[in-house]
């Protein structure tokens, strides 16, 4: 029973990771950049959703607000993501590998600090220096569903459903649309893609936007699930999501989803490890140990797209 319970918990946590991981994987697949700031994009998605709820007058918790929150969160995340791409990463497109990575760390710290310092300054907005309570929307949160001895949080269910919807959408987008196929082509060989008339700059922007939109979904789901958000939430979540992306094979979108779910399951199961080095206190350690093991012994990941030569 405990195992089943942790399976559910792990799956829903993994769905969160998967949603964020897609952002890492599409960007890395195209320009081989570890977008360190992607965790912060996820955080901004959550804050965008919160902003929408604050701006809607009244203290209502009706389900009709959910799409509005989602859209505003997406707009905030996509906008921020495109801005960072344009002003921080694009000028460094041909620089040595170290430069964009350090820039990404800078962007990550900048975005965190920006939210911490300025979010609370808008009149009527809560102080972002502390954790902020996230509104609990009707139907998607509330009393947990009991299936015999197993408890399923509504928000967990929401996360899993969101992942499934997004995955279907992604699959259609990447495999069935012109833009999606252009994206695949660019990720395989940017130079040839450019010669074939693909606007590579635009494809890169689409990749950033796509990742940011999914991260915003994850941000909203996170807020509903953990009931509060803060400016630091992007760091650890981003790191875990990156782990998930690597786990599944970076550059491979299905891999990111699978990797996220596997990582979530591992974390869920790790809490069941008995004895001194088990329990929830050590689950992060086990997640990172898994990351290191995968990187060392199977750098192409579980689904293994291709072995990138990371010079």
């Amino acid at each position: 029973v405990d195992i089943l319970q942790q399976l559910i918990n792990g799956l829903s946590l993994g769905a969160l990771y998967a949603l964020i991981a897609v952002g890492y994987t599409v960007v890395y697949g195209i320009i081989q950049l570890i977008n360190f700031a992607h965790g912060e994009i996820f955080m901004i998605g959550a804050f965008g959703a919160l902003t929408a709820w604050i701006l809607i007058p009244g203290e209502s918790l009706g389900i009709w607000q959910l799409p509005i929150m989602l859209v505003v969160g997406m707009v905030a995340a996509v906008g921020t993501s495109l801005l960072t791409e344009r002003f921080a990463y694009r000028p460094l497109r041909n620089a040595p590998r170290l430069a964009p990575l350090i820039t990404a760390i800078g962007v990550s710290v900048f975005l965190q600090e920006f939210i911490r310092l300025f979010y609370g300054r808008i009149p009527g907005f809560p102080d972002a220096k502390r954790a902020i309570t996230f509104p609990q929307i009707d139907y998607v949160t509330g009393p947990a569903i009991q299936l015999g001895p197993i408890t399923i949080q509504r928000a967990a269910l929401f996360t899993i459903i969101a992942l499934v919807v997004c995955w279907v959408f992604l699959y259609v987008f990447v495999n069935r649309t012109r833009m999606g196929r252009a994206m695949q082509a660019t990720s395989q060989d940017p130079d040839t893609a450019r010669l074939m008339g693909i606007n590579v700059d635009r494809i890169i922007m689409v990749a950033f936007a796509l990742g940011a939109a999914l991260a915003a979904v994850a941000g909203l789901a996170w807020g509903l699930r953990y009931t509060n958000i803060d400016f630091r939430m992007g760091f650890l979540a981003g790191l875990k999501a990156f782990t998930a992306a690597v786990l599944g094979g970076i550059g491979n979108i299905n891999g990111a989803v699978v990797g996220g779910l596997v990582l979530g399951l591992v974390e869920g199961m790790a809490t069941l490890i008995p004895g001194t080095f088990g329990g929830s206190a050590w689950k992060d350690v086990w997640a990172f140990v898994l990351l290191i093991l995968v990187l060392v012994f199977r750098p192409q990941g579980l689904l293994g797209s291709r072995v990138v030569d990371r010079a």
Partner: protein
Amino acid sequence: MITVPRLVTPERQQRSDPAGGWVAIAGGVILAASAFLPWAYSFKALDGMTLLGFPSPLQYLGLVLGLLVAGLVVCSRRIKPKGKIRVGWVRGAKAAATGALVYIAIIILSIAVELGGLINVVYGGWVALLGAAIAFAGTRLMIMDKPATLAQAQLRPTLEILLVAVVMGAALFATAFALNIDDGGAFVSFIAFLGAFVAVLFRVGAMGFLSGVSQRHRKVLILAAFVVAFLFPFTQGGSDANMSIATQVIIFAAAAMGLNITVGLAGLLDLGYIAFLGAGAFTAAVLSRSAFATADIHPPFIVVVLIAGAVSATLGLIIGSPTLRVSGDYLAIVTLAFGEIFRISMINLDGEAGPNITHGSNGIPAIPDLTLFGFDFGRPHIVLGIPLGRFSNYYFLLLVLIAFVILVFVRLNNSRIGRGWVAIREDEKAAEAMGVNVFGLKLFAFASGAFLAGIAGAVKAHQDISVTPDQYVFLESAFLLAAVVLGGMGTVLGVLVGATLLKLLPEKLRFVSDFRLMIFALLLIIMMRFRPEGMIPSQRRQLEFHEEDEELAERIDEEVEQTGALKGAGI
């Protein structure tokens, strides 16, 4: 890419060079004269620039910059080059004018920020800005002269040694002066002035000359540098406030120097480096005589330092071992994961989630002060009538430490090992084909860097009195990396400057304390965009970051021919 239209074309410079000179002189004189006018409305801004006829220290510095511009232009017209030795007068004038403009702009902005609005800038300030702007415009119109070759000049050895002493004395004076400025705006302005002054020295060629002098008298220079560093506590008049900052700076710099081996020399990006400093600190804390220490053995401090270094180096070996199979971005992530594992483990080893070693997030408090050879580091001492506090004691110990760290760094860099690292950094496969032991050298880079951080951590534990896991978070690793990158990867001087700036600025910029992380992040982004090789780059690095820049390659080629060595390759 945004392209700025060029206002000043070479043709225009050709036509207006003489006029430009006069304009620049006029601007310089106006700027110098404005020092005697009041600049600010209230005494509260900066260092009191309200008097007519009595310049404040910062206004005197404006005067210096103004005269510098005018003087350099006059020199460029009057002094003809003798023999092969050229001085870059016009280059210097251009740098001085640019620096003056920035300096005055910063002062005016500081006045506006501190007093609330540009309205508080009095006419003298505007005159100064006008003068600087005129001087800037004038120097833009002048034709750039050829690069200076002052580096080849030589003086009599006694004079040169005297010069080294004077320069070092000036550095000590400037540092003591800067640290005693309490006003944030005044501090930033002074740093801007120093930056402008050093830039002028570079452009004129004086820095080339000085580096030539220092290479001829390297031992004198190193001795002088340490004498100056040693004398620093005596300029503080018994106050421990600045000494506490200074000790923080040195520990930070020592750790950054260790990271410099891994990142700067071997080119292995390490994002979890702070864990090594933490491992050293926790080892020392556990073995100390603190009532909360969990080990029952208390070896003498020398042994503790070695154990701390060994523990860190072992961790370094473990973290370095995946480098056999992963490299580049993946390695960065592996090290980041290790850093997080270290931090979480230190929190969890609290007796509940794991065995009790570190008391969890409370850490180990009440670590006693060091006692070495009967010398108690906790008690103030009086030397030559000047009281030296607790931090001064640690400062002297840390000076020895950083001297050791720099020695190790330089000796490694100039050895077979150092050349092997360069080869690995530039092309791993080629290096392996040439018989370089790639894996061994990579491991050694991790282990040696970690060892240095470990011994620094051991001292840090005693100096900070307590050790807690939250001192060793990812942000600190990012800070260390930023110090290395901003200063100039692979150099000693650059990393020292970078570490000093990164630790000192937040202390002095209390008035923007809430924004300092944000400013730091912006600085990092801007730096990567415009000068990825850092403030004081080694020339090899500069070439690596600007591979397509043929002009730079030629210039460095020429300089190498003249001086016989790559600058920044050694010290």
